[in-house]
């Protein structure tokens, strides 16, 4: 049941607005979770990308591009391009791209160190702890 709930949250977290196939690019067999620092925000259609730098098991620096929802939908939920700042420390959960050379992460959730979910449902305007922990 726990895995179902986790997967359900993953699936719901990023609205299924994508008009490219999620399963075409990403592999649900490769879940990934890591902590790192925000390097860049690409506020672009049809998905935003948040670049997050972390350290791999062999000690090397790796920058993942974390795919998010469509910027217009995120804007309407109260999120902004500068909601996350370069240098913010976040935890990312998602699934890796099928391509071994790609560092894109799909179906992702981004969580701040204080527990706030970023770019999920319930944007900054609905800034209650309840909505952000949904």
């Amino acid at each position, binding site marked *: 049941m726990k*895995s*179902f709930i*986790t*997967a*359900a*949250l*993953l*699936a*719901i977290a990023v*609205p*299924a*607005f994508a*008009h*490219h*196939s999620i*399963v*075409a*690019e990403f592999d*649900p*067999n490769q*879940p990934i979770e890591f902590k790192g620092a925000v390097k860049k925000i*690409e506020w*672009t*259609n*049809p*998905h935003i*990308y948040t670049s997050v730098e972390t350290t791999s098991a062999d000690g090397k620096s790796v920058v993942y591009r974390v795919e998010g929802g*469509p910027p*217009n*939908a995120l*804007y*309407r*939920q*109260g999120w902004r391009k500068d909601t996350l700042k370069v240098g913010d420390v976040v935890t990312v959960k998602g699934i890796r*791209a099928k*391509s071994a050379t*790609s560092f*894109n992460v799909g179906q992702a959730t981004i969580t701040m160190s204080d527990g706030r979910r970023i770019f999920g*449902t*319930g*944007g900054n*305007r*609905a800034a209650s702890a309840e909505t952000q922990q949904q």
Partner: protein
Amino acid sequence: MKKFLVAFAMALVVAAVFWTAPVPAAQRGRGAAPAAPAGPAPRLSNGKPDLSGHWTNPYTPNMAMRVVDATTREPMTFARQGEVLKDAIDPKRTFDLPYTDWGLKKWKEYDPVGKGDYTGNCLPFGMSRNINSPHGTQILQSPDAVAFLFEQNTWFHWVPTNDKFKWPEDLPEAWNGVSVGHWDGDTLVVVTKGFNGYTRLDTNGHPHSKQMVMTNTFLRKDSNTIEHTVTVHDPKAYTRDWMNVRTWRLKPANDVIMEYSCEENNLANILNGAIKVWHAPEDDDE
């Protein structure tokens, strides 16, 4: 891992249901001012209801979910309904619409993972998927025409309603088709045909042929609400006409239509291979 895959598939179903639900609050803008209390439907100087406004049209990735009979508006029943199509590209697909043999073949072979989907290439979604999209629609209306401004990819669709207007008869087939509107009482009836056959009806990939005649109706029931129906008449793909009935809600005034450029990052994803390049089928309507 098997548990995760099963859970993930179940979750996608849950998500599909969730996102098919009409008018999620989030689509109307978190924290946005609520729409004004409903009043009577506004009218133009010619007495016709004025559909103008910025609307939340329900995101509909799967038109088979709530399919009704086009005549009775009752839930539709048909032969083979619900039969699992084990030989489809995706073996979870079912006989979920009243397919002809041709339509069933197209439904079974739709392969967005292996072959890509034209929408990932930012090509026109088609009239059906424009209206199914989650990003909202601005309607502009004059006594002679209605314009639909779809936020999805910043597309538009123009519908003349003046019966003196005639489209050229030799217009080329089009991704979005060509529309003509007329009034049935207070209901705007938009009949669209002339499709190039490259498009699918929805995100799930339900098929149609070039012969499809799609009829959308719009009835502004009050200042905040439109009753929208879409009827698919395509004897090549379906043995019977079928319909969806949906409710559009007026967005609050501070929820404005915005630019949407699909190419902004899909272009790079196409060039680096993350999104497959779409090619027009050579036998698109055979």
